């Protein structure tokens, strides 16, 4: 077989590998935080619409709908950053997968657009009717299902793209036939990977529910919402641990071996990640018993954040291992642009300060009595 893998861009890397990899891992994890709420949250919203109506469901629904558009916007914004860094580090694989997917790759945008506008339509209120929303309940449920399906399809396409870009051996097949089919033909390749992404998002999404439900302090209604969130997260984490092992064992033998023999830094992040995930499971178990327990909530969230970051790092290590026979990062010529890096850092710090100020202003505006988020 001719070597179909393009060479690294001769312009080289404008920064040291470690810096770019760190940024990729961190921004990818941040993207997950918001994306997971958009994805899992849109399914939870469907669930809230079926069954008997109740006060706590209504409250949770309203609050989630208030947060959802901002979360989607931030998921997009924080998605752009890893998109940038993955192109810098792995463009020669990423681009090929994009081209092979072609319109499937562009379909992500259409799905996102439809999903996002549908959310706004679901939020819209009747011009004359004050609180009343447009559309009847069955139609609203249908629209919610549409949003959730669109976001799930996006996750599916991103998984497909990632798998295709990390398995160059599939490229001739993808080129000759259906690019999506080439990835999904072998169940072991993409199914655990996709499920890992999907189920994981309920783990993080459930925690969002806990926070959102208790946003204005704790009462009986809020506690019910928080319990639902904790349960969603708990069940997802349990399933996720099982799927994680399936995913691990489905890896190509050579790659699995390197993970098991500590030949990659990914072994460490993986093992630490699994340990903390078990800790997260326990914390969530207790949280589901006492949903408004503030310290437990913080512990669970901190553990979830750590697991997310570690798994994002493991994900990167996995990419390196899968591509090892084709390319390794040290092969890059590095021409560091220190000037622009410093300017960027200055802009970044200033930007964060502005964002913090904006968030404070907005927060105070919406909580005029200085109501605290925690119980």
């Amino acid at each position, binding site marked *: 077989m001719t070597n*179909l*893998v393009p060479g690294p861009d001769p*312009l080289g890397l404008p920064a040291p590998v470690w810096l770019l990899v760190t940024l990729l891992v961190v921004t990818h994890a941040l993207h997950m935080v918001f994306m997971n709420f958009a994805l899992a949250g849109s399914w939870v919203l469907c669930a809230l619409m079926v069954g008997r109506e109740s006060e706590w469901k209504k409250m949770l629904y309203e609050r989630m709908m208030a947060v959802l558009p901002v979360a989607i916007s931030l998921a997009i914004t924080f998605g752009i950053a890893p*998109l*940038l*860094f993955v192109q810098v580090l792995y463009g020669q694989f990423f681009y090929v997968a994009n081209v092979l997917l072609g319109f499937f790759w562009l379909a992500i945008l259409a799905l996102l657009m439809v999903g996002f506008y549908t959310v706004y339509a679901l939020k819209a209120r009747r011009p004359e009717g004050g609180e009343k929303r447009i559309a009847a309940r069955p139609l609203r449920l249908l629209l919610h299902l549409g949003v959730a399906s669109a976001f799930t399809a996006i996750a599916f396409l991103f998984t497909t793209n990632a798998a295709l870009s990390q398995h160059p051996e599939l490229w001739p097949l993808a*080129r000759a036939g259906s690019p999506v089919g080439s990835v999904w033909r072998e169940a072991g390749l993409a199914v655990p990977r996709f499920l890992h992404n999907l189920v994981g998002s309920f783990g993080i999404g459930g925690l969002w529910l806990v926070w959102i439900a208790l946003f204005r302090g704790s009462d009986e209604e809020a506690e019910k919402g928080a319990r639902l969130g904790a349960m969603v997260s708990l069940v997802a984490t349990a399933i996720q641990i099982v799927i994680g092992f399936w995913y691990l064992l489905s890896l190509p033998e050579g790659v699995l071996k390197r993970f098991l023999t500590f030949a990659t830094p990914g072994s460490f992040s993986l093992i630490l990640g699994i340990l903390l995930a078990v800790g997260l499971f326990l914390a969530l178990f207790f949280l589901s018993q006492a949903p408004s327990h503030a310290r437990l909530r913080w512990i669970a969230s901190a553990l979830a954040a750590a697991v997310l970051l570690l798994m994002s790092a493991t994900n990167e290590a996995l990419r390196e291992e899968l591509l090892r026979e084709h390319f390794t990062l040290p092969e890059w010529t590095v021409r560091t642009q220190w000037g622009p890096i410093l300017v960027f850092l200055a802009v970044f710090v200033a930007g964060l300060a502005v964002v913090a100020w904006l968030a404070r202003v907005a927060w105070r505006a919406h909580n005029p009595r200085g109501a605290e988020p925690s119980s």
Partner: protein
Amino acid sequence: MWEYPDWNVPRLGGGMVIAAIATIHVLVAHFSVGAGFLLAIGEGRARKTQDAVLLDFLRLFSKVLLLAGFVFGAITGVGIWFSISIASTRATSMLIHTFVWFWAMEWVFFLVEIVAGYAYYTTWDKVPGTVHRALGWTYAAAAWMSLFLISGILSFMLTPGEWTETRDVWDAFLNPTFPPTVALRTVSCLAIAGLVAMLVANLSRSLDREGKTRVINFSAWFLSPLVLMLPFAAWYFAELPQLAKDLITGGAVAMMMFFLFGIVASTLVGLYAYFGLIRARRYINLETSLLLLSIAMIATVSMEFVREGVRKPYLIYDHLYSNGLVKSEIEKVNREGVLPNAPWATLATRAEAGGGPRTGEILFNLQCSQCHVLGGFNDLVPLIRPWSRELLVYNLDRIHELKPFMPPLVGTPEERRALADTLWELKEGSGDRGEEAAGNDQPGSGS
């Protein structure tokens, strides 16, 4: 060298898909930037003059910004990335590897823009007026900064300036057409925001005729900078490379028309805004505001078309050709041949075991199909119809001299002959598939 697979879009070509997404995005993005200034300035004025009508209008306008800019603008912005990465892969890779830190800065401003926009939109009446205005100005500043940064990167493609020699990213960013690009785009942004404001005022159900006129006269201020279009365009023109200037001044009539149309239309709208709407305080109805907005949008798009069009034969001037070949690779490809340097193109041949495209077709697909679609846009057959076979063979080696906006043909002598054969067959209309080119069908030897 053609290390990446190509994306085949039947009939339209990938370039058209990019153009469609980019056009829509440019308009919405321009609106998003201009709208920030309109809101910030408008709110200041409304609060100072205690103009509740204007204030109410701005609240409505901020919703339009949210729905159009934050959803449509943001997603099509990502869309440009998605589409250029598949339609112009090498150019995308070069832009990314040159400008990562500028993109990263752009991203920071984008983040500020989004957060400021939501903060602004959700805190009407919930924070003191001065704070709310500060939020508006934060949004406007961040949005304009992202325009500023993107302008440097876009203008780099047309005028890379010193970068071609130094490979220094500052040379790339601070390139000759960067300042006029910022100036032109800023003017367009303000105008489009002003025109959308007029449209929204007309559509608004809560404004009476007097209120509408007041909003329209206020918005007209954002159109008046359009009279600067002419000097700014002249400045831009002065910084263009010679070949691009030649194209505009007549080498390609379409370019000249677009350029002139863009300037004239913008100037006229600007003059009308000043004399008709600001001085004479006229009212304009829904149809007229739609008409004006359409003119401004077409003018903006025309100027973008010119920017893209005059870049031929390059994607990145003096560096990367429209057909994906880097200038310095020509010699290598002429020596080794196209096929060994195009693993993806020959993959299809081998997979289809002899029935796939032949050398001539591969050459055409790789080097010509970006601008010549067989049986479609800018079809080659009519162009070569009067030519004899000898002239065709002779001319193919000189297409870049015949029309300087074409990249030179590259390939070994045999490959060139195969292309000539293919073209000749097409011209003769015989779909007969000879095997004369089969000898060149050896697999490529890597990238």
